[in-house]
């Protein structure tokens, strides 16, 4: 990571009619950083990504990418970005490799370059065997892999990934993470949205949690957990309808209790001690689990909602 500010947003706002999708956010991303946007459905992550990708005009506020203004230098900025949109948008009449070729041509790559590049990326996306097939009948995960591969066609300096691993099987996710690590090591800046906490913790140096178009927390995954959650969490499951009955008995155990439809979460720095205390009070759940706090818990604390609903 360097000190060069690659993306800078001040009071960045996006409205659709009366609806405010992004509500005056401030963001700064440095070159070489891996930066994440987290938030529930409708938080404004994709709207932000589209503004950064210079395909959605800024309603108000300031936005600078690679030192350039998207309103003026859109094409010059986009030439240096790789974009993997949330939805797989592919030309289903074309074959797998043709989708890569035509895309690369928009960046001014020569025919030879797009072929060479497509060759490598097909390998990476494990689509070499399907290269000549039409895209339409591919599985969802294969289309996702192809979309990700396409975003790398122009060898971008900045990679914008909107929920890149949604729909990927675990093996494909890990291959993608590995690739992203390598790109990051070479100085490629990653800007990612995700609903997966493990992904955010794995990949992101720094992230923001968005809710209703605003940023509600910001920091490294570790710092966020330290600030907004306890070290450990005790998960308690009770028989159906019994959860309510036990709530009172939990008073004063741990720092905080979160009630989910199917379980109770007790936030405490020492989970085992909390569990012992509960046993002493005669609370015997069907099952219990002590685990470390994750970003999921931060998220729950901040927004009162789970990430994946």
């Amino acid at each position, binding site marked *: 990571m360097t000190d060069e500010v690659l993306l800078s947003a001040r009071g960045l706002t996006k409205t659709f009619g009366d609806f405010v999708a992004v509500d005056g956010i401030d963001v700064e991303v440095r070159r070489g950083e891996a930066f994440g946007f987290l938030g529930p459905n409708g938080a404004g992550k994709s709207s932000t990504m589209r503004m950064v990708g210079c*395909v959605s005009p800024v309603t108000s506020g300031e936005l600078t990418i690679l030192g350039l203004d998207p309103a003026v230098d859109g094409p010059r900025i*986009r030439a240096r970005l790789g974009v993997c949109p949330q939805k797989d948008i592919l030309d289903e009449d074309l074959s797998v490799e043709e989708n890569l070729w035509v895309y690369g041509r*928009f960046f*001014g790559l020569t025919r030879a370059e797009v072929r060479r590049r497509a060759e*490598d990326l097909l390998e990476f*996306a494990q689509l070499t065997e399907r290269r000549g097939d039409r895209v339409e009948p591919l599985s969802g995960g294969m289309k996702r892999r192809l979309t990700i591969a396409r975003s790398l066609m*122009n060898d971008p300096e900045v990679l914008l990934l909107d929920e890149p691993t949604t729909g990927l099987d675990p093996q494909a996710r890990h*291959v993608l993470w590995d*690739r992203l690590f*390598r790109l990051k090591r070479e100085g490629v800046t990653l800007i990612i949205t995700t609903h997966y906490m493990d992904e955010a913790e794995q990949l992101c140096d720094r992230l923001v949690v968005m809710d209703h178009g605003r940023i509600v927390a910001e920091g490294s995954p570790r710092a966020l957990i330290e600030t907004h959650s306890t070290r450990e969490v005790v998960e308690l499951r009770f028989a159906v309808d019994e959860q309510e009955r036990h709530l009172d008995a939990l008073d004063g155990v741990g720092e905080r209790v979160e009630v989910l439809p199917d379980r109770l979460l007790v936030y405490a720095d020492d989970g085992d001690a909390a569990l012992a205390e509960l046993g002493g009070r005669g609370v015997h759940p069907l099952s219990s689990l002590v685990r470390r706090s994750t970003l999921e818990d931060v998220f729950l604390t901040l927004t009162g909602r789970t990430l994946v609903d």
Partner: protein
Amino acid sequence: MASADALTATTPSGRLGRGPRRPTSATERIAAVMGHHLLVARRTWKGTVVGRFASPLFFLLAMGLGLGALVDERTGGIDGLPYLRFVVPGIVAMQAMTTAFGESTYAVMGYIKWNQMYSAMLATPLRSSELLLGHLAVVALQLTVSSAAFVLVAAPFGAFGSWWAVLAVPVAVLTGLAFAVPTFALSATVDTDNVFSILFRFVVTPLMLFSGTFFPIEQLPGWMQPLAWVTPLWHGVVLSREASEGVAPGWSTLAHLAVLLLYVGVGWVLARWRFRVRLLP
């Protein structure tokens, strides 16, 4: 995904190398858009070519030869012209119109709304106006090919009175664009394809019938004639007929051309605006 080791050819992650990319010119980007559409056309032409080609041929046989024999026998042709030579240049222009609608309705809505390819393409250095221009250029190319093919097929039947008939091809392209460009704007504006069936039923079919293709518009009731004057097809038909008979151009020729160009020009302004608003929300 496979191990990224396959990419060691360049750098560990497969980067092409550092440094800024060579900047692209607008021409280069428009050519890339054309390349995309031509590749798609190459993959899908079999599905459309039969319909595209069969329908004007049927008109040629049924109207030009079948009906033509009757007309020539009874009335000695139209304005002294055998009916075949009257109607075929009209069919050339008419075919351009239907091809234009075929290429600028569902196809454009698909790229905007169904497969959303336009929006994926705009994540690259492309501008929305370049995207539009590249697609329109391919439509113009398709108009050229289909009109030229039909002129070639119709010529041996004696459908043209002059070698100037080759000019019927550019006239047909212009006529087609006079419909295609505004229709691009429409397709980028409406939300459902219901509009297109209305368009085909209440615009395309009446225009085919009442634009002087099969009979001179002077035969229409007086109140209908202005409708022919303000829509592009009649102008295209008249120009096509003049070219096919090698009639020397006059002021009226310029006026017909001007109307077609006006449709293209106004259509372009509208389409560029609609594309920007729709594709860059």
